[in-house]
């Protein structure tokens, strides 16, 4: 099986703060991690490789230090890792990102077509959940989002069953590969990698793709230029304080009504 996993390096949001003056994220000194959902996508790829044998290609787009994320992918058993890195890619929204990734994937697929495309369900810094679907559309492969389980039922016929979490329950879908799946955390647990994989990871130098080589990207579709989305403002929502709880049974209906009216008037609503 030929698997492609797309990952993103994100700031560890448990540490993130917003600069109150500029309204932008303070990234200085905030450690970077592999997007947690992507870790589970990698874990699934790793598991499939161990169970059925697979070749795993991992791509990421980001600044040079995103190399660290790819090293982590090698710990999971990735065979080939590619970093899409160029100043021209910077400032990309989900549209430009999915274009950039999809072109890279098409290029890589020329060597050997992929059977499975794995993405995290969303990135914890932007939370859009759009890049996976955007890439699926561009590649023309079926898309299954929010996957929580994958079973291979027939390796020969390349049939798999995917369980997908929805608001109302779990959908169980049968699909023939290739398919693009965006993974939730339940899909697989990250393995405790053996030492040789860690050593391999430490020795890894990812292949670098830039805006010209090996793929001549269309400049106007990249980065900030190719992104119709503009961030207007970033701010921390005000914490809502817990309301007062009054029991009508204790204070009586009329007093309750009086209190509500008083509060509404106080806030200028009435």
């Amino acid at each position: 099986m030929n698997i492609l996993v797309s990952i993103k390096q994100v700031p560890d949001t448990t540490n993130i703060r917003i600069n109150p003056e500029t309204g932008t994220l303070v990234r200085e000194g905030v450690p970077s991690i592999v997007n947690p959902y992507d870790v589970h996508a990698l874990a699934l790829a790793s598991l499939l490789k161990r169970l059925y044998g697979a070749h795993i290609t991992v791509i990421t787009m980001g600044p040079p230090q995103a190399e660290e994320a790819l090293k982590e992918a090698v710990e999971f058993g990735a065979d080939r890792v590619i970093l899409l890195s160029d100043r021209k890619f910077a400032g990309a929204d989900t549209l430009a990102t999915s274009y950039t990734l999809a072109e890279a994937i098409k290029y890589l697929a020329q060597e050997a077509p992929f059977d499975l495309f794995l993405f995290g369900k969303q990135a914890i810094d932007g939370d859009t959940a759009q890049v996976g679907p955007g890439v699926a559309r561009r590649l023309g492969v079926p898309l299954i989002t929010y996957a929580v389980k994958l079973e291979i039922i027939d390796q020969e016929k390349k049939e798999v069953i995917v369980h997908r979490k929805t608001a109302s329950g779990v959908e169980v879908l049968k699909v023939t590969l290739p398919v693009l799946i965006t993974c939730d955390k339940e899909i697989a647990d990250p393995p405790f990698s053996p030492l040789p994989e860690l050593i391999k990871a430490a020795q890894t130098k990812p292949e670098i793709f830039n805006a010209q080589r090996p793929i001549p990207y269309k400049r106007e579709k990249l980065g900030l230029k190719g992104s119709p989305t503009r961030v207007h403002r970033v701010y921390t929502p005000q914490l809502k304080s817990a309301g007062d709880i009054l029991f009508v049974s204790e204070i009586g209906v009329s007093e309750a009504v009086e209190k509500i009216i008083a509060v509404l008037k106080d806030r200028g609503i009435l």
Partner: protein
Amino acid sequence: MVRLNYDVIVVGGGPAGMAAAITCARAGLDTILLERGRFAGAKNLFGGVVYTASVLSLVPDLFSASRLPFERPVTEEGWWILSQDGVVKITHTNATLRESPPRAFTAFRAKFDAWLAKQAQKAGVLVVPKVRVIDLLIKDNFVCGVQTDRTASWDDHRPAQVKAPVVILAEGVNRILSIKAGLVPRDFSPKEVALSVKEVLQLPKGELESRFGLQKDTGLAVELLGEASLGLPGTGFLYTNTSCLSLGVGLFLIDYATHNIKPYALLEHLKRHPVLAPLLAEAETLEYGAHLIPEWGFFGLAKLCGNGVLAVGDAVGLVNPLFREGTNLAIYSGILAGKAAIYAHKKGNFGYHTLRLYEEALKDSYIYQDLRYFRKLKTFLQQNKSFFQTYPYLLNEVLHLYLTAQGRAKQEVFKEICQLIRKQRGVTGLLGDFVRAMKFLKGW
């Protein structure tokens, strides 16, 4: 296939381990460094001052880098001697301290150690994080490798082993492997280690400079005495970083237990001190950390090496709390151990008698002289409690009386001061302390 045989294995990615690994790799030895943290520096903590000379001894082209792995230069240093509600400040700065390059910097280990790891990689060291070494491989009385917490492969669940004729232990204060290697006879006792707690505090923009009178290229590093350690043997510290400050305090581990002090409560007490509180107003805590400091000193000094094994840095207790030395000693010891490993490879002999080159070099250095000179420091501090318990407070009171003497007969004031000293410590006590301090300083 991944190789699991190297010329040198270094256990621990702090300054000592990095210095040893860099030294070995530069001499062409195939060097692997195993670090248990997510990255080098992830699990490390110190108060925050690095001495430039030690870094230069390892990375001579330090200042050619565009971004230094430091925060601020230290241009003013000294002590703030705290009473319950007051302070006597003794700090020093002069033109030499403000010269470039600065002789010391404040720093964060997460950045500094990660930077050292980059230098190590450049030198050719294979730095492998997320691996914990759980045991040593010993054959015919020679250490010949390590056993890790990771498995040998996806299918082979036995612990993976890495082999090398020389293993350098830079494991830090928790010297589990050094004990296994027979370099240290036992674990440390609560009297032999200090526990320091530290917070990194972010002040509103521009406040750090205005509150501490700093410019862009100046910085303050002060030790806090007296009330900072509740009058117990120990010190606090306050170091200014680029846009935040590091505030911490440490006591001997035994004193936390004996006096039932919670480390966080000790730090909170310091933060609420009437002198410090306004300096910390509106500060946001960015980080909270704690670390053990090995203060067993000369008498607890480990054997520095054995057959196929060397120990460096905190693992052998190379710190001088009085002069805030630790990171620099770690680096120096790492370099010396690295040189011994190189020598052993040249000779093709990895026994104690070859590796002893390290022990001898260290004994010739000021590190060992200092260890010897200050060998009674711990006992001195623990036995002469008045230096922490009485004098800081007394000094504050005396200065207060002196400085508020206006409108009174001065003779009366001096009399009051003398009475105060007599009451608090007594003439014999004072003289005794003086003699003991002099004796200590003369190294008797």
